[in-house]
């Protein structure tokens, strides 16, 4: 069965097709939500933001020129809205889950390893990356964005995308080492 492409859905949305909007939303809202949630670290805020992101898609569909993938375009909108929200609420408290993850720094390496396997420690370290590093790791690994697409979403040169990812991974190794896992790199 043929799946309607995102570009076709956008063309229909531009014509006011609500069903196309529902399909696009169903297809992408979870990933957009997770991307935003990793940035704002608050579920309620992230949920509010995705309706704003898709409302922008509804409004701007007629201007979409297909220069990037629809998913890339939506992540760009999502990122802009998430950062705008964070700027408006600099005092915003992190949700409990995120806070707990950060406080886990208190565990010494033996305790951490005793409590969790290597994969779990790796996920914990991924959660402790800075927002900037977390964002790029998610875009590359989870959202499967190319160097060019990440550059477009984040608004930085492609060379910077590569070096930022490199340093994010380097930081990850350092965090793992603190938890008793020496990867022998860098």
């Amino acid at each position, binding site marked *: 069965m043929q799946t309607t492409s995102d570009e076709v859905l956008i063309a229909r949305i531009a014509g006011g097709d609500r069903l196309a909007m529902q399909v696009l939303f169903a297809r992408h809202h979870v990933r957009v939500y997770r991307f935003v949630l990793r940035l704002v670290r608050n579920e309620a805020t992230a949920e509010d933001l995705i309706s704003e992101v898709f409302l922008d898609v509804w409004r701007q569909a007629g201007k979409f020129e297909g220069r990037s993938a629809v998913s890339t375009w939506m992540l760009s909108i999502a990122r802009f809205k998430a950062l705008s929200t964070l700027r408006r609420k600099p005092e915003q408290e992190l949700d409990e889950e995120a806070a707990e993850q950060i406080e886990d720094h208190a565990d010494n390496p033996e305790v951490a390893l005793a409590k969790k396997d290597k994969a779990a420690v*790796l996920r914990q370290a991924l959660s402790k990356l800075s927002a900037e590093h977390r964002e790029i790791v998610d875009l590359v690994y989870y959202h499967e964005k190319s160097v060019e697409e990440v550059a477009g979403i984040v608004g930085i040169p492609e060379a910077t995308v590569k070096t930022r990812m490199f340093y994010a991974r380097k930081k990850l190794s350092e965090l793992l080492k603190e938890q008793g896992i020496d990867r022998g790199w860098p």
Partner: protein
Amino acid sequence: MNTTNKEAHSDIEELLPWHAAGTLNRRDTQRVEQALARDPELARRFAMVREELGETILLNETLGAPSAHAMEKLFAKIDAEPARKPALSLNLSARVAGFFASLSPRTLAWSASAAALAILLQAGLIAGIVIKEKSAGGYETASAPSTDPGVGAFTLIRFAPQASSDDITKFLEANKLQVAAGPMSGGLYKVRVAVTGLPKAELARIVKKLQEDKVVGFIATTE
């Protein structure tokens, strides 16, 4: 290792995350694969990248999903939006894409080769849109009533199965043809070759010329 090799190594190493995610272009993919094949240390680091990739996916998948209210909120906002005017600013390809998608597979189910016919029907839509846009100076769908639907000289064409919609569009444009109806039984399209009637000999000459094009599988004159 000299400086140049170090720089090259670093360059390759920076690409490992995208290689693991499968988002590198063909050239860079080959460069990375060649480097991985000859450098065990790089291969070991690539294994680390793959671990990171897997755990990042797992981490994100455990983040859950928004509630059902998210869609309700969105459509409440959309309902509050002013009524939308026709999307005149859409480019041709987007409109054509919309037409493609509006054709459900069920409508094409009469044919054993629905996929091939979908391409052909798309071509008809492309032709209709292109020609009518040029003649009327505005947007009109291929399925919209024509001012003179039965006037002109016509042929029946079945396009070659391997012809892409792009090939067919170019063929129709190059020969100033317009798809008037179709697909009909057997995957045939009624194609207008002239806006006025033509002598039989002239129509036969045109048919013979069109027959030589590789996108044409079958062609015959018709009323």
